[in-house]
């Protein structure tokens, strides 16, 4: 996958599988939140996750273990956030 337009739910499940993640309802909610942010061109950050109302930081780390924002954006088919926070 090289472009966001190529992203769909099947691709998403495959990408998640490669990361050892089995998609659940909560995972989809997070992906939806990330897409929303991406479409509005709002930067993603861990502080933003805390304020999102979709998920808290502890859950976020447990859903996407080992670099949550990096993995979640990869699965969502968008570039890794450039922020340091």
């Amino acid at each position, binding site marked *: 996958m090289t472009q966001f337009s190529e992203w769909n739910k099947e691709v998403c499940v495959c990408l998640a599988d490669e990361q050892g993640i089995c998609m659940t309802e909560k995972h989809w909610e997070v992906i939806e939140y990330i897409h929303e942010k991406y479409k509005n061109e709002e*930067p993603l*950050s861990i*502080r933003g996750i*805390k304020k999102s109302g979709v998920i808290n930081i*502890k859950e976020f780390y447990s859903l996407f273990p080992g*670099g949550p*924002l*990096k993995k979640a954006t990869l699965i969502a088919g968008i570039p890794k956030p450039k922020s*340091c*926070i």
Partner: protein
Amino acid sequence: MSDTKVKKMLFILSKATIENVYAAFIMANGARMEGIESEIFFTFFGLEAIQKKKLEHLHVATVGNPAMHMPTMLGGLPGVEALATKMMKKEMEKLDMPPVGEFLEILSDSGCKLWGCKLAIDMFHLEETDLIDELDGILTIGDFYNRADQDGTHLLFI
């Protein structure tokens, strides 16, 4: 777990100027975001950053800091340090950097362990109730070194 050779970052924070505290916090948080374990050991003046009453009142140093590009005497005048701090906090807010208290919550929720130094806590006559609720415990330096006893661990003194 991280794919890098760095598996765990241990920070020793011994100062409480804003720039030092944020350096430790950003690096510790950045490690967690990359799947690297991280822990912070607060010692000496670094303890100010985990004292409930003091953590939101940390300052940037205007005296003895050549990078401020102002004469030392001017930096020592009343209100200058507060003004410089206010300006820096404003710039930080623009970049969506959280205040110290919120940053500590984020670190704790992210799985970064926060430790107080036993010797320094005794020296400053602090009680556990003076310290933040997110603190994982109070350790001796020996206890802290034991936490470093695994491959791919790095220690950083700030």
